C-alpha cells in the first residue's frame, strides 16, 4: 500500500515538474549544448562540409597571450564594478530597509528600479552624452566651479566602470534590501538595550545576517560584467577592448563561431572556477 502511494506521488511529482524541466531543456540546455558542440569544430557544418572535430579553438586560448591578457583585464573590471556596486548599493539598501518607512520608502524603491525599465543601450548612450568632453558633466561642473576643469572621462576605463556600476547597481540594492528587511527588529532592539553602538549593531548583527543577500547581489553583478561588451565598446573607446568584445568580434565581424564559442566556454569555466574558489566564503555566510 505504501509502495503504491509512493509511486503515485512520484508520478504526480514528475507531472508537476515536467513543464519546468522541459522549459529548461528547450531554453537553456539545447542552445548551450549546440554552442558547446560548435566550440569543438573546425568550421560550422552549414558553411563548410569538410568540418571536423578539434581542440584547436581551446588550444588557441592557451597559446595566444592576448586572450589571457584580456581575460585578466575583464576579471579586474568585474571585480572593480562589483566592489563599486557593493560600496554604493549596500549603504543604500541599509538606509532603505532600516531607516526609511512608509511612502518615502516606496518612492525611493521605485527610483532605484526605474533605470531598470529603460533599455540598457539608451542608458549607456545617455552616459556618453553626460561624460564626453564638452558634455553635460563638464558644463555643469564648470558652471559651478570658479576654475576651468577638463575631466576627459569619456573613452577611458573610468567611463566603462561608471556605466557598468550604474547598470548593475539595482541588483545589489534589491538583494541586500530583501536580506536586510528580513532581519527581526527585536534582535536590533535587544542589542541596543545591551548598550551596543550603531556601528557594533551593523558589524555584529546586520552585516552577518544580510551577507547572503549581499553576496548573491555581488555574484549577479560580477558574472555578466566579466562578459560585458556593449558598455566597453561605447564608453571605452580605444581602451574598450575586453574579453567580451573579443568574443563579439568572433561572432559578428569574422564569423568564427567555433572560436567564439570556445572563448565563451573558457570564460564560463573561469567564472565558475572563481565562484568555486569563493564558495567557502559564500557557504560560511549562509550558516
Amino acid at each position, binding site marked *: 500500500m505504501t509502495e503504491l502511494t509512493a509511486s503515485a506521488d512520484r508520478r504526480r511529482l514528475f507531472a508537476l515538474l515536467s513543464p519546468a524541466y522541459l522549459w529548461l531543456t528547450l531554453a537553456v540546455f539545447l542552445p548551450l549544448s549546440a554552442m558547446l558542440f560548435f566550440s569543438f569544430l573546425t568550421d560550422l557544418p*552549414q*558553411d563548410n562540409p569538410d568540418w571536423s572535430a578539434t581542440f584547436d579553438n581551446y588550444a588557441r586560448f592557451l597559446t*595566444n597571450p*592576448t586572450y589571457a*591578457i*584580456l581575460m585578466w*583585464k575583464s576579471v579586474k573590471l568585474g571585480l572593480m564594478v562589483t566592489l563599486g556596486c557593493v560600496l554604493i548599493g549596500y549603504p543604500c539598501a541599509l538606509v532603505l530597509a532600516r531607516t526609511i518607512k512608509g511612502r518615502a520608502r516606496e518612492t525611493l524603491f521605485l527610483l532605484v528600479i526605474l533605470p531598470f525599465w529603460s533599455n540598457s543601450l539608451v542608458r549607456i548612450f545617455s552616459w556618453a552624452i553626460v561624460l*564626453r*568632453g*564638452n558634455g553635460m558633466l563638464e558644463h555643469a561642473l564648470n558652471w559651478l566651479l570658479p576654475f576651468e576643469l577638463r575631466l*576627459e572621462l*569619456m*573613452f577611458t576605463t573610468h567611463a566603462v566602470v561608471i556605466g557598468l556600476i550604474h547598470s548593475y547597481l539595482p541588483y545589489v540594492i534589491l538583494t541586500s534590501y530583501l536580506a536586510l528587511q528580513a532581519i527581526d527588529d527585536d534582535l536590533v532592539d535587544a542589542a541596543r538595550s545591551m548598550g551596543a553602538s550603531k556601528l557594533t549593531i551593523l558589524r555584529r548583527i546586520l552585516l552577518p545576517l544580510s551577507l547572503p543577500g549581499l553576496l548573491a547581489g555581488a555574484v549577479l553583478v560580477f558574472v555578466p560584467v566579466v562578459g560585458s561588451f556593449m558598455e566597453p565598446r561605447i564608453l571605452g*573607446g*580605444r*581602451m*574598450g*577592448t575586453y574579453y567580451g568584445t*573579443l568574443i563579439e*568580434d568572433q561572432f*559578428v*565581424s*569574422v*564569423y*568564427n563561431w567555433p572560436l567564439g564559442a570556445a572563448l565563451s566556454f573558457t570564460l564560463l569555466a573561469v567564472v565558475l572556477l572563481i565562484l568555486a574558489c569563493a564558495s567557502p566564503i559564500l557557504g560560511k555566510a549562509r550558516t
Partner: protein
Amino acid sequence: MKTFLLSLSVAALSATGALADEIRVLNWQGYGTDQDFATKPFEEATGHTVVHEYFNSEQEMLTKLRTNPGAYDVVMINATFTEQAAAEGLIAPIDTAALPNFDGIPAKFADDPMQKIDGAQYGVPWTWGLTSFAINAQSVDEAPSSIEALWDPKYEGHVSIRDDAIEAMQIGALATGQDINDIKDIEAVKDKLAALLPNLLTFWGSENDWNQSMASGQLDIATYWSGSAVRSIAQGLEIEFVIPEEGAIGWLDALSIPATSEHKAAGEAFINWMIDPEFYVAWDKAGSPAPANAKAAAALPEEAFNRRVLGDPEVLARVQFQVPVEDATKEQYLEIWQTLKARQ
C-alpha cells in the same frame, strides 16, 4: 527625364511578367538605395515596392545571406567580398542584357576579375571611392599633405580611425610605403600602428558618429571614406578630405542578386535603375561616392567632388585598389590588431 522614363519602361518590360513585387534590398543604412529619390521614382515607374534591411559590417551581410535564404532580392557587396559570396553560392550571375544601363560601365570596373568570375557577371559595379582621412577645418588650419599627420603629436587625443583590422593594417602599409595588398614588412606596420594607438581618442563606428565627433570639436583628424566626406560636406560640416602623397585605399561597391531570390526580374530592374545616370545625378546632390558608370560621371556638375577630385587622373594614379584578403591573412591581421588593442 525622358531617358530615365525610357530606361525604366525598358526595365519594366524586360521584367518578365512585370507584376508588382516586393523586393528586399540588403545594404548599409542611408547608402543610396534607401533614400526617397532612389525608391520613389522606381516604385512609381515599375509598381514594385522596395523594402530595406541593413547590415553593420560585411561579415554581418554574409551571415544574413547565409542564414536567411530567399529573404533578399538585391544585395550591396563590396568588391572584395563578391568572389567569396559567389564561391559560397550566395549570389547568382546577372544577365547584363537585362540591364540597358550596363553599357555605361567601363571595362576597367565591369571586367574586373572580382566582378566577372569565369565569364559570369556576379556583381554590377555601382560606386567606388577612397578610404583616406579628413581634417576638421575648424581646428586644423592647413590640410596636411602626408598621412603622417595621423601620427602627429600635435593632434594627440583628437585622432580617430575605424576599429577594423584590415583597414588599420592597410593604413599602416601606406604609411610605411608598402603595397596594401601585399604587406612584406609586417613588423614595420605593427610598430607603426602601436605608435598610432596612443594618439587616438576612440574608434569611430558610423558616419553619424564621425559627424558628431567632428562637429563637437572632439576630433581634429580621422580616417574617412570619400563618399561619406561628400555627404558630410553637403550637410555643412567644415571638413576637408585629404588624399596624401603616400596614396589612399580604393574600394568598389557592387550590386548583386542573391541566388535564393524569388524576384530576380524585379531585382534586375532595380539594379538597372541604380546605375542610371539620372539616379547618380540625384544621389550626387545628396552626397554620394563616385559613380562606376562613366556616363553618369560625365553627367555630374563640374564642381562636384566626384568629378573635380576623384576625376583627377593624378589622384587616381596614387590610389591602391583593394583585392580580396585571404582568410589566413585576415586572421593574422585580426590577431595583430587585437594584440595591439589589448595592450592599451
